[in-house]
Structure formats: C-alpha cells, structure tokens
C-alpha cells in the first residue's frame, strides 16, 4: 500500500488525539491532566501546520501554530500553579478528593 507522507502525518495526528482523549477520560491526577492536555494540543498544532501545508499557505498555519503554542504554555503554567495551590490546601492531587460538590 502506497500512502503519501501527508496522510501518514494525518494518521499520527489522529493517534495523538486518541491517546489524549483516552488520557483525559481516565486520569484523576491534576498534574497528569495538564500533561495530557499538552498531548492533545500538540496534535491540534500538528493539524494546523499540516492544513497550512496542504492548502499551500504554510505561513498562516505556522502563525496559528505559534499562537497555539503560547496559549498552551499559559494553560500549562496556570494549571500547574493551580495544582500546587490545591496540593497545599487539600493535601492531595486527586480530583475526586478535592471535589466539594455534594450529590
């Protein structure tokens, strides 16, 4: 079977997306949730660059990918800061333990 390189990259994107969604569904540790979000965003960033490449407008794809990298880093930083404060206050990183909602 002869498959083009761009289709291989598309398969990689779907694979990373699947791993990220699975991790998000089964993870309860706050730091690991941030980590899994990073995997998901890497998949999206790769998809943006691939779309720019396929559409013959790689500059636009790169520009959007750069914005995604900045936003992703800020999400990681704020998420980690939140995790540190939660750990100091509740003594755990388990999202089930820190839930204060009843019912």
């Amino acid at each position, binding site marked *: 079977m002869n498959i*083009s390189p761009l289709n291989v990259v598309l398969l990689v994107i779907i*694979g990373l997306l699947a791993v990220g969604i*699975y991790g998000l569904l089964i993870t309860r540790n706050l730091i690991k949730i941030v980590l899994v979000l990073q995997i998901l965003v890497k998949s999206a960033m790769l998809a943006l660059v691939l779309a720019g490449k396929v559409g013959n407008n790689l500059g636009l794809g*790169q520009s959007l990918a750069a*914005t995604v990298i900045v936003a992703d880093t800020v999400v990681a930083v704020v998420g980690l800061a939140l*995790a540190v404060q939660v750990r100091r206050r509740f003594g755990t990183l388990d999202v089930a333990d820190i839930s204060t909602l009843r019912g």
Partner: protein
Amino acid sequence: MESYLYLILGLAAIVCAYRAMISTRLLSSILYLACVSAMVSVILYLLGAQQVAVIELSVGAGLVTVLMVYALSVVGDDARDLLSVIPKPLAILIVVLSAFFVAIMVFPLVEPPLDVTSFSLTVVLWQQRVLDVWIQIALIFSGVLGVLGLLSEREATPISHTERFADQIVGTSQEEVHS
C-alpha cells in the same frame, strides 16, 4: 522513503504519549512528554515549518518540562495508580468512536489546486494577523501571573479530611432540619 520517516517519528511520538499517560511515576511521564515534543518538532521541521519547530522544541521540550519538574518537586510524586474516572472499556469505546469519526471526516487528504497566494510567516504574523500578536502578549502576561502563583511560598490553610467530613455532616443535618 519519506513516508517511512514520518511513520517512524509518528509511531515514536504516539508510543511516548501513551507511556506518558500510563506511567505511574510523574517524573517519567514528564520526560516522555518531552520526547513527544521533540518528535513533533522534527515532524514540523520536515513539513517545512522550521520556525514553529524551533519554538516547539524550546518551549514544549524545554520550558514546559522545567516548569513541570519544578511543580513536581513542590508537590511531590506520590506515584499512586488512581482508579480511572469512568470505566476503561467505556473510555476505549469513546476513543475508538472519536478516532473513527475524525478519520471518516479527514481521510483521504485531498490536495487543492496550487493557485492560493502564499505569504511568508513574517508577513502573516506581523501584517495580516496583528491581533494574534496582541493576544499572545496578553497571554504571556497571564502566564507570568501564573508563574507567580506557582512560585508563591505563602502556605494556604490546609483543610483536613476530618474537618471537611464534619462540615458535610453539619451541612446535611441543617438541610434535614430545614426540610
């Protein structure tokens, strides 16, 4: 030949991502995530997005890894294998369905005619999408505030599980009195 190169790099990225997700030790997970960033950077470079590849390598594999290791050194690695939020077979079913529907939507990759006017990254970023640059600046300031939150040494008042349990019991009894 180029397809095999993408395939090897992609498989390595997916395996590292899976190992990062299932590893019980958080430090191992963080290092695997750095490997994913490195693999994605090489794929981006091969796709022709050299600038973004460099940014991804320095930020994704460098800055984020350092921040995560620092956060881990603050909170400690308890290395517990927590039960999943939802049953694992259900999670696998959701993932398979999601991947299947995404694959149906995007495959096969159709290349459009090459009559689109292409601009360089410099022109796009500094002339056509200036608002994105301003948003990035605002986001970076938010990130700085996040780093301050991460580095703050002020200890919050810890709430013990006994106090929370007592609080819940009091809340429940008050609801019963009202009803």
